[in-house]
């Protein structure tokens, strides 16, 4: 193996959350055990090699016994499988065979184990009884455990991180991110993902620098490597030299200073030069983030994503639990509004136990309002919690993934049913709240006129709208360059929705990523979108941008923009007209 301990390595990915961090890498790599190296072992070292294997097995066994020992008697039923695994560890066919192969073939323990396991797997896979066929999984599980100990990979239990680290992973599922003790995380570095991935959103929300989409960074970085991350440029440096470190520290100081300047004006209202006040609000995912919205000068919570409480748990959260959180958020924000979006479990945020079967195409599957209407119990529990929290402040309710008129009617009917039962019970609640739908499915854009009769506001979710309209999977790097907010089709759709809103007195908000980028503010303002909701960190910069604009100019500008026929030309027009203004705010 190459000795590259002192060598500085520079990699570039997608900087999705700005900021600089320098620290130790912590690898979360579930697939690390799949890559097994084969090398021969000299006869004199065979004894050592066998001992290395025995130690790995012993460690695995101790680990299992530890878990069994820590399980209360009442739950011992669940440890049966672990006890079986503990016996399997020392099984002749696995343990004895591996040692035999190390001896006979003079190869490393990892390879010997891999060989034994793949033979066993083949044997089991050929069996008739499904039960016995599945036992191959137990063997794989046990051997993975040994393998992890052999190759020295940590047990990927990110719950247990207890030092300040930079998290390095192939990808992080929402369930994983929700387990992390975030105060220990200085930065995120991953192979997969991009600006709009869940990890990206979380990183930005929590103001943790993140560089994603690095392809095979988990192959290059090792546990405890020193790395420097620049979430603004997407640069990461492994084994930085003294010189690089100085450069990064300097950049960090600059970044903090710049942030301080932007923050200074954050509490001033976002009023255009010609006197139009725009509401600039924050998107939140964790209830705690409401503080961040307030600190960044947000005029309310424009989008409260409620999925978090449903993740990484067995069963659904109860009404009381949901109500407590909603009430917290609403009270902190009082008297400013909080728009609570009902459960939008989707492909990205899927919870295995809640989806009956894994869907082949979850983005087009049972998610959002569709899921809720199919699971009225889950939906009603949440609506009850929302209506009850509404008694404590300014609440709006927002239904996601609406694709047609009937879904709105059905959702509103359930809302009324819930209100009626709350009223019968004599529980304190408020039904008199504004109702909105997300405009994120192209059919909802087309049907905007009809839906306007049923709702008080539209909230445009640009991320999904762009994805569905342009048929782009935003997680797929091969097509992600086609994900263009400035595509003329998207802008025409926005125009249609804002026209409908103007003619029908329905309010129109925007809560997608597009709202949080100051460069788009002239277009959004020019179209008449009066409320923007974004990551709390973007609030100050967007407010600043709005304060430098004139609505009259923006309206004329939009007319020009809509005449253009390609995203490229629109981008150029926008850059030429407003690029300089924006560059002052962004590093």
């Amino acid at each position, binding site marked *: 193996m190459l000795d590259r301990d002192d060598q500085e390595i520079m990699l570039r990915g997608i900087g999705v959350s700005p900021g600089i961090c320098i620290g130790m890498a912590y690898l979360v790599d579930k697939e690390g055990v799949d890559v097994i190296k084969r090398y021969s072992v000299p006869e004199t070292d065979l004894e050592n090699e066998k001992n290395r294997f025995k130690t790995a097995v012993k460690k695995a066994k101790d680990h299992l016994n530890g878990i069994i020992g820590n399980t209360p008697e009442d739950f011992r039923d669940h440890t049966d*499988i672990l006890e*079986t695994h503990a*016996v*399997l560890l020392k099984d002749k*066919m696995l343990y004895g065979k591996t040692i035999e192969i190390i001896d006979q073939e003079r190869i490393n323990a990892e390879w010997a184990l891999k060989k034994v396991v793949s033979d066993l797997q083949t*044997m089991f896979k050929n*069996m008739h009884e499904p*039960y016995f066929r599945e036992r191959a999984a137990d063997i794989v599980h046990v051997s993975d455990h040994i393998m992890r100990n052999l190759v020295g990979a940590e047990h990927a239990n990110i719950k247990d991180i207890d030092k300040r680290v930079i998290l390095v992973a192939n990808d992080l599922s929402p369930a994983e991110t929700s387990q992390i003790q975030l105060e220990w995380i200085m930065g995120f570095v991953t192979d997969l993902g991009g600006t709009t991935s869940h990890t990206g959103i979380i990183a930005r929300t929590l103001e943790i620098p993140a560089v994603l989409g690095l392809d095979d960074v988990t192959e290059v970085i090792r546990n405890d490597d020193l790395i420097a991350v620049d979430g603004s440029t997407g640069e990461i440096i492994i084994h930085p030299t003294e010189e690089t470190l100085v450069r990064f520290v300097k950049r960090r100081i600059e970044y903090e200073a710049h942030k301080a300047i932007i923050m200074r004006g954050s509490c001033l209202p976002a009023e255009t030069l010609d006197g139009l006040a725009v509401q600039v609000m924050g998107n939140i995912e964790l209830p705690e983030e409401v503080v961040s919205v307030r600190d960044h000068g947000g005029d309310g919570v424009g989008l409260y994503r409620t999925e978090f409480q449903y993740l990484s748990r067995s069963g659904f959260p109860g009404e009381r639990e949901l109500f407590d959180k909603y009430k917290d958020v609403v009270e902190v924000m009082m008297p400013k509004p909080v728009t609570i979006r009902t459960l939008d479990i989707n492909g990205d945020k899927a919870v295995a136990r809640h989806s009956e079967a894994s869907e082949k195409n979850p983005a087009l599957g049972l998610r959002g309002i569709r899921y809720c209407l199919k699971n009225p119990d889950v939906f009603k529990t949440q609506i009850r919690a929302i209506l009850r929290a509404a008694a404590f402040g300014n609440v709006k309710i927002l239904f996601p993934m609406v694709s047609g008129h009937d879904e709105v009617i059905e959702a509103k009917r359930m809302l009324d049913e819930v209100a009626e039962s709350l009223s019968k019970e004599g529980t304190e609640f408020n039904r008199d709240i504004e109702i909105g739908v997300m405009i994120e499915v192209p059919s909802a854009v087309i049907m905007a006129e009809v839906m306007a009769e049923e709702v008080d506001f539209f909230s445009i979710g640009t991320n999904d709208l762009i994805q569905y309209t342009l048929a782009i999977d935003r997680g797929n790097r091969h097509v992600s360059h086609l994900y263009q907010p400035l595509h003329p089709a998207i802008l025409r759709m926005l125009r249609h929705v804002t026209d409908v809103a103007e003619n029908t007195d329905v309010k129109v908000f925007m809560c997608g990523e597009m709202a949080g980028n100051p460069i788009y503010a002239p277009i959004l303002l020019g179209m008449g979108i009066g409320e923007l909701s974004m990551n709390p960190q973007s609030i100050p910069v967007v407010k600043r941008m709005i304060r430098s604009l004139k609505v009259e100019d923006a309206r004329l500008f939009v007319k020009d923009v809509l005449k253009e026929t390609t995203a490229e030309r629109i981008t150029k027009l926008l850059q030429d007209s407003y690029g300089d203004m924006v560059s002052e705010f962004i590093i």
Partner: protein
Amino acid sequence: MSHSVKEFLKDVVIINELGLHARAAARIAEVAGNAKSKMWIIKGDEVVDAASIVDLLTLGCAKGSNITIKIESLSDVDTLNRVAELIENGFGE
């Protein structure tokens, strides 16, 4: 050897619902591990090591399977009886 071969063998039937599943096999292997000489489980033409779960599982013994336990030394009769008992009691399920 003058002893009848019979004494070294014992036929049993798997009676529990799941057959000789992983945990059951683990229990047999654990007991068989105490034998001083080898202990074998025979099903049809196949002979496997009673001390190996993996081996036992490869027999694929569903409920109702007839199997034979075989020992190589009389000193393991107790162990043989304990294994037989386990199986006949359906592993206490």
